[in-house]
């Protein structure tokens, strides 16, 4: 499920950024055109993957059996139904109240709300400083690898069970 979930999330998140027009300029047009399809693909992968994994990983493993049906239906369909209901309700209420149509302009108001910005806000960027972004990005990558490697080592090493 981890593989299905990871693939689904990556597709869906790229699709989300594409739909909102937030991809880098080079991919912006393509993102806006394909974004919703990527979102749908991610959702389909998540649901389909859930059914597939339910058939493999559940205690009741016989595909098509009544017990499998209970596990798959309860765990997957039930989750989707509850989640989908609340998401739809929130969307409808939000659309009616107008909050979903709220544009980006509200974010500019924060800078003019009477609370003075910090002195660092006026600092001119010097060449090469963008590379500082690599420090936290590399840190995240290293730490993620460290945790994943640690878990995999423990999971995959031969264990002696007495």
């Amino acid at each position, binding site marked *: 499920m981890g593989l299905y979930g990871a693939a689904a999330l990556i597709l869906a998140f790229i699709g989300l950024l594409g739909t909102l027009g937030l991809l880098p300029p080079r991919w912006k047009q393509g993102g806006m055109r394909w974004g919703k399809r990527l979102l749908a693909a991610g959702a389909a992968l998540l649901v389909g993957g859930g059914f597939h994994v339910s058939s493999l990983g559940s205690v009741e493993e016989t595909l098509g059996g009544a017990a499998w049906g209970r596990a798959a239906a309860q765990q997957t369909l039930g989750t989707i139904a509850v989640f989908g209901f609340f998401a739809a309700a929130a969307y409808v209420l939000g659309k009616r109240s107008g909050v979903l149509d709220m544009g980006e302009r509200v974010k500019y108001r924060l800078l003019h709300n009477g609370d003075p910005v910090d002195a660092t*806000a006026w600092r001119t960027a010097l060449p090469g400083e963008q590379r500082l972004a690599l420090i936290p990005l590399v840190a995240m990558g290293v730490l993620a690898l460290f945790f994943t490697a640690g878990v995999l080592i423990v999971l995959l090493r031969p264990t002696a069970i007495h």
Partner: protein
Amino acid sequence: MVFSNAEGSASRNFFLTSVLWMAIGMSFGLFAAVLMIFPDLVRNIPILEYFTFGRVRPVHTNLVLFGWLTGAYFGTVFYMVPRLAGTKLWSERLGNATVVLHNIMMTSFAAALLLGYNTGREYAEQPWVNKLLVAAVFIMVIINVLMTFACRTEKELYVSAWYFIGALLTAPVIYIVGNQFLLPWNPVSGVNDAVINWFYGHNILGYWFTPVGIGAIYYLLPKMVGAPIWSHRLSMIGFWVIFFVYGPTGAHHLVNGPVPYWLQTVAIAFSVCLIVPVWTVLTNFYGTLSGRWGAVKESVPLKFLVSAMVFYFITCFQGPMQSLRSVSAITHFTSWVVGHAHLALLGTFSFIMFASIYYALPRLVGRQIWSVRLQEWHFWLSLIGFAMFFVSLTVGGLVQGSHWLANQSGSFIGSVTGQLPYNIVRAMGGALILGAQVLFIYNIFKSVTAGKRFEVESDAVAAAQA
């Protein structure tokens, strides 16, 4: 005086009292870490019988969660909400009364736990009378904040406002339901009580600590770099996803336990889905900082925020991973989980609160931070100490899990004594962290009493924004 109506006084008082609870709470934490190295330290010493691990540990968790972090959160909310709403806080007097009640509550918390009153429920150890105080404090804050928004002049709600309102409306519900409706007896017991306990224990993170922390970032970051957040729409999507997805995740604390299989699976699935809101926050954070990274070199609060984002990513990378059954089989009940909890509450949300206090307090008291050098020491000692802390806990946890997997009928005590090196590094890291906070508290109180006048750069603001 304690019920002052002066503008900003409630926020300031919450900040100043919360850092004191932080010092006390973290001291108990360090003592608990020392007890894990010297378990017989307080044995047969009459007065110190109150300071056994079983009492010290919940005092630590309660004081840092409710005294420090929640207190700082109230201070942050009381600072930011008026500025988001375009009006004054509805009642500074009520806010200051809340400060007083909060401090009475925390004193009662510590006393009850040290005297041995403990319900045995994680983060809900308090006797029911103290829990009524928590509900009262939240109700006072909710009234004050909602009335401020009701009187607002700024009609559109920025994302931070959504997060704060969402947190204040959901957290009390979670607290009341998760503490069995604050009744003096427990109507539900056994495994079902464990399900309710972890509905509360995890969702208090997702509906209180996470949204207020994220809301604070969305306020602070634009103020520190002089640029609006990259995408308000993306931030709102993150908000709605958090509030819908977090609820069912609580049972991931009970994976592989005697709870219904379907409940565990639902919790795991939703825990994985939590990756989405994290990515929205991180995308917005890096998008906003793009082209402005030089500011990080000169601003300690920004350093804290950048570090907090790294730890937030790691927390939400570990979380979905460790909710999986196969991973949970290794990590559950080990030090890994302790490291994970500290990644969230200390590495992420406490770091955000340090930035919040450094930003807000000078504006509240009209004085600059007394020593930039002490700020730097605070940051670097906190970061290095915390890195030692969570790495040792994570590695130690994996060693524990590996040992238990390999020796299921073998010597348990071997896995305990084998943790000694990791516990030593953990205690050293904890000592560095506590030392850093002592510098922080000293700097804060010197700023309030002897800092240089804080000047609003209004001309520079006008010129740059023209």
